[in-house]
């Protein structure tokens, strides 16, 4: 077969891109393990297994070749992102439901890799959030909080027993091992107007050094991984910068009453901010593709995250914000086309 030009190609493949994104998550995963325990590893293995099985089923049903699509790494990445977004002790069936929904419905029903309009990991997350709202709040107490509270720390066997057999040690209930996330705690406290921000700070249960206690380290780790991705040219800066600066500015603008609102830095270093900005919103398939469109896409997410966190019904809003902005992508791409060379000078006459 005679091919057409060019005859030299860069060696980068999809698989390498997906792998680099997974590598960039490693610092975040390590911090996650430190604060929330080893359960994340078994979750990740389970999620990857489910992802590969459901991806294979979808490919077989759609009569697509297995090898290139299974090895592209996209299904694995989706399952990792979903797993990192849900509590570490989520029972096994939640992971199975979430991941298979992501792969089968959000990805393959729409045509598979490259054709899905909505971020598959976030669709899976939302399905779990609206179906099992209680389980989605079961974040275990971070390790650095154990000594300041009466909370218990489960060992790895106990965790696995809970996840797979719904068994807790005797005389223990789920509340004894979990606690609300800083965003959740702050929101509840502020909404009930029980305390001011400075009072909450003094209690030392919500605020860490710059953001949410424990979660700030997770965010820093994701930030580091994300910066590496930008340096490697796997993602462009447009979406994270749009997201983070919009969130920062919203928090600055609407947070003038510092006793009743979270600071811009708290927003940046709490919840899923950095994971969302560098790993979730930057999914190229479902994000805007033009440079200007990407800035607006990111900024839209940042604004929506602030709105949901501050005035909405959920403590965090990255998933909803990403899916809402996914809907706008065709419009953004259409209206933000860059000026083509030779079309930007003002026309004569």
């Amino acid at each position, binding site marked *: 077969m005679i091919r*057409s030009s060019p*005859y*030299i190609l860069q060696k980068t493949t*999809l698989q390498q891109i997906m792998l680099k994104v997974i590598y960039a998550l490693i610092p975040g995963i390590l911090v996650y393990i430190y604060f929330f325990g080893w359960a994340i590893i078994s979750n990740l293995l389970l999620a990857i297994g489910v992802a590969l099985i459901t991806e294979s089923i979808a490919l077989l049903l759609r009569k697509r070749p297995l090898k290139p699509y299974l090895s592209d790494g996209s299904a694995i990445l989706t399952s990792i992102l979903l797993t990192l977004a849900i509590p570490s002790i989520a029972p096994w069936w939640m992971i199975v439901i979430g991941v298979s929904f992501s792969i089968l419905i959000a990805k393959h029903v729409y045509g598979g*890799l490259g054709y899905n309009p909505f971020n598959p990991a976030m669709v899976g997350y939302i399905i779990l959030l609206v179906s099992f709202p209680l389980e989605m709040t079961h974040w275990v107490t971070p390790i650095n909080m154990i000594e300041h509270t009466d909370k218990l720390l489960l060992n790895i066997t106990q965790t696995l027993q809970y996840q797979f057999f719904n068994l807790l040690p005797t005389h223990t209930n789920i509340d004894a091992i979990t606690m609300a996330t800083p965003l959740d705690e702050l929101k509840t406290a502020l909404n009930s107007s029980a305390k001011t921000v400075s009072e909450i700070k003094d209690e030392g249960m919500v605020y860490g050094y710059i953001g949410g206690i424990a979660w700030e380290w997770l965010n820093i780790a994701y930030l580091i991984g994300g910066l590496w991705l930008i340096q490697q040219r796997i993602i462009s800066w447009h979406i994270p910068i749009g997201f983070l600066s919009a969130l920062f500015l919203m928090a600055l603008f609407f947070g003038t009453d510092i006793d009743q609102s979270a600071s811009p830095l708290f927003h940046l270093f709490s919840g899923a901010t950095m994971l969302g900005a560098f790993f979730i919103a930057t999914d190229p398939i479902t994000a805007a593709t033009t440079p200007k469109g990407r800035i607006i896409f990111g900024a839209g997410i940042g604004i929506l995250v602030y709105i949901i966190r501050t005035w909405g019904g959920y403590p965090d809003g990255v998933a909803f914000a990403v899916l809402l902005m996914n809907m706008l992508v065709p419009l953004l791409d259409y209206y933000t086309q860059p000026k083509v060379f030779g079309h930007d000078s003002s026309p004569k006459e």
Partner: protein
Amino acid sequence: MHTMWSGGLKLKGYKTISNQQKSITAPIPNTLIIPLQQHIGQLTHPVVQVGDKVKKGQCIAQSKHFISAAVHASSSGTVTAIENHPVAHPSQLATPCIIIKTDGKEEWITHHGTSNYQQLSRAELRDRIGKAGIVGLGGAVFPTQVKLTPPSDTRITTLILNGAECEPYITCDDRLMREQASEILQGMAIIAYILKVPHVIIGIEDNKPQAYQTLQHALSQTALFPQLNVEIIQVPTIYPAGGEKQLIYTLTGKKIPSYELPAQQGIVCHNVATCFSVYEAIVKGIPLISRLVTVTGQKQGFNVRTLIGTPIQDLLDYVAYHPTIKHTLIMGGPMMGTALSNTRIPIVKASNCILLQDTPPFEQTMPCIRCAQCSHVCPVNLLPQQLYWYARSKEFDKIQDIHLFDCIECGCCSYVCPSHIPLVHYYRYAKTEIWNKEKQKQKADLARTRHEFHLFRLEREKKEKAERHKKKKTTLNKTKTDAIQAALQRTKAKKQPTNNSDKNTMQNDPNPTDSHSQVSTPDKDKSLL
């Protein structure tokens, strides 16, 4: 010093494979295969016949059209056939060629040139360049004399010489600049004289420092006409720096608007090799019958002065290149060249490089993930990922809205695509489909107009028939009535024999045939007939 366009690629050059040694000259092949169409424009017609003896430099095909370029015998011999022969074309198309069996005598046709070109009129110089069959040797092969005849209302202020040679592997312009710097400058001066330009900029990529220095040196040594201001500028080695509009922007900061020619902005761009050919044609009287070809891709590469029409096989044999099934043979560079399936294809005026490459392993094409690496490197600032989407779904209106026809097919997008999608191939496909549709539309329009005229004619004939019928009828009726009237009159006259006026009555009969005029035909059908 220079402005930079966005996008582009830093590619590995592979230039040293072929640019380290002096150029060599290929021997005369046994057979020359000289295509009639080696340029953009009208096809030439042979002016020799099978069996004719031809001399070196003799014109063997030409065209009356202005946008065309004459074709010459590259060596002396006998015309053995005028037939279709495969040439370098993406679909391996065969086009009409003149086949010459060479006699090895290199018998020249009488030719003469002059170094006092300023004695000649500009029209005469253009004519000589046209008759020498000179075309743009950078790859576009546009007839040079056309570019030297700007519309009367435009004034050319800057002449740009393109010595960028931005594609990897190719070094023929590099070697030419090093070996024939003074000739290039003289050719440049002739072009500057014809266009009456005061200012020349020579653009060379900064990976060719020797060429730059040689030209600088030659510039200080060569006596050009004094009012000519020549600048030599090194431009960054970013592919495609040698794209015409990219180079103009780099050197002058002017963006040539889409669908406009550089001439409309007062700029004309010529390749350095074209300047050399102009020098040869005017000063020595030698038409374009040979060119420098880079043969490269293996351990040792060469620059070979090759006669136009030399089969590639002869050239490969000369440099001991042996293509196998594991190789890809490319005419042109690796980014924009054409893969060849046949080594009997001839070297033509456009052939700057013959690249024998090890075929890279097959890469599985994956779906587009809209990563935008392609739009990041596009030198024209297009959105290749969107163009691809529309080309795939055959939405040819939308693809033109996002400026498909501004694509210069440089291949940067395909090069970086992590899904290994042959993007440029899709754009070529879309362009061809749109052109075909337009042709079909024109045909359909013509057919529709014809059909409409056919209906109109039928209607007209029907009308005319009806008119004729009516006319006949009226005439007939009138004659009838008249006869009756006459009869009545006669009876009356018989009844009144004393009345003498009956003769007068007969004479006063009106002539009924005058009352009808011819049916007029509208102007429209005259023009269509």
